[in-house]
Each structure stands twice: as C-alpha cells, then as structure tokens.
C-alpha cells in the first residue's frame, strides 16, 4: 500500500482524510484507485478528457514523477505520493503596455 497525501482543500472529497492508503503498482494505478474510492475528487484532478489537469503535479516521495517515468512510475509499499499544484502568474500588464502599438488619434 502507498500513502497519498491529500491537500487541505481536497479533503472535503475524501471524507476529511488528510491521507489515504491505496494499492497500486504504478502512479497511474494508485491515482485511479484514489478517484475510484472518492469519485468527486476526479474532476478536481482530471479534465473532461480524462487527462490530469495542467496545474496538477504528483510527487513520489520527494521526486516529481515528470522526471521519473511519469504516471508509469513504479510505486512500492510504503511510498508516499503528494499532489502539488503548479502556480505562477503576475501582473504582466506593464510588459503589455510597453509592446502595444500606440493607436494614432483620429481613428481609421
């Protein structure tokens, strides 16, 4: 069994459990077992096409599975999976202002 750590906002979908023990030989199998056990969690983690949402990262122990074998990464008993979002952003407005062409007065 592997342990999946549940981020706080998702615990409303896991009967308030902050971690869940699940069976599975790969990350994909463990994640499938997780959403099978808690179906409401599915749309939080996967889009309508069944792909993991762009902002969802999975870590096996302390390693990002994208740098391992992605969702085919083998999971051993006692491993811990963490769900971690990608977050970025920024005002980005000043860059836009600098690059936008100035519209001449008077229009077309």
């Amino acid at each position, binding site marked *: 069994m592997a342990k999946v750590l549940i981020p706080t*906002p998702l615990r409303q979908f896991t009967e308030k459990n902050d971690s869940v023990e699940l069976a599975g030989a790969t990350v994909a199998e463990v994640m499938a077992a997780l959403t099978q056990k808690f179906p409401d969690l599915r749309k939080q983690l996967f889009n309508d096409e069944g792909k993991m949402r762009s902002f969802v990262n999975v870590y096996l122990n302390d390693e990002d599975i994208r740098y391992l074998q992605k969702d085919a990464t083998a999971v051993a008993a006692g491993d811990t999976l963490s769900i971690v979002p990608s977050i970025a952003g920024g005002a980005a407005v000043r860059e836009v202002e600098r690059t936008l062409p100035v519209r001449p007065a008077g229009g077309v």
Partner: protein
Amino acid sequence: MIKINETAWAAMVAHAEAAYPNECCGAMIGQTTIGTIDGDVKSVTIAEALENAYAGAQGARYELRPEDLLAADKKARAAGLDLIGIFHSHPDCDAYFSKTDLENSCPWYSFVVLSVKGGKFDHANSFLPNAEQTVAEKEELIWPKS
C-alpha cells in the same frame, strides 16, 4: 472569508516590499473553520516567504517551485495546520487577478495579491479561481488595521 493575523501579515508585506520592484510570492498557512456565521473562515497565522523562481524578468511575473510548495505543506502538516493560500505582489500595479494569474492558478487555494506602489504596500485583494482557470471570484479579505 480569509483573515490574516498580524504576524503573518507583517511577513507578507515585508516580503512584498523587499522584493520590489520585482514580484514576490509565498504560502499562507493556518486553519479553516467550517460553517461559522460568516461561512467558512480561513485564518492565516503563518506566512512563508518563498523564492520567485520565474526565469525571466520578475517585475511582472512570478513562479512558485512545486518543491517549495510541497515543503510548505509539510511544514504546515507538522504544525497541525494547513496550507490554505498563496500570496504574490503586483509592483506599481493594482491588486487585481490578471489573465496571467488566472491562467497559471489552481482552484484549491485562496490567492492574495498585494499591490506595492513606489516600494510601499498600498492595498490587497483575495481571489478564488475556478478549475477551468477562466474566472476568479473575489473573496472577502481581512488583514490587521483594514
């Protein structure tokens, strides 16, 4: 509603002002009380300043390393608390949720934006983006002396 205590707020403002004219970012840790008279109330007691990992110019962009967020989550769990939000600053710009913010957000957390003008904190707002990254609802934000 999200309430930020004095210690956490001071750390957030200090981080935002120190990073100026660049954007700063960090994690907010605390507890959520479900179903009060005001609805669910998130109380932030710890603000963890994290490094802006954006590779280009940081005056109008930020990026959090997932590893840093994972470490903040572990710290919260160890203290019996929860990771409940993310904060970042907008230097010389209002505290709105930009298109860039929305397209790189996650619906699980509160996003507090601090406006820093001329190096000094000006105002702040909190937002709750949706899973499709198309809309962010404004959330009531209470900080000390507000």
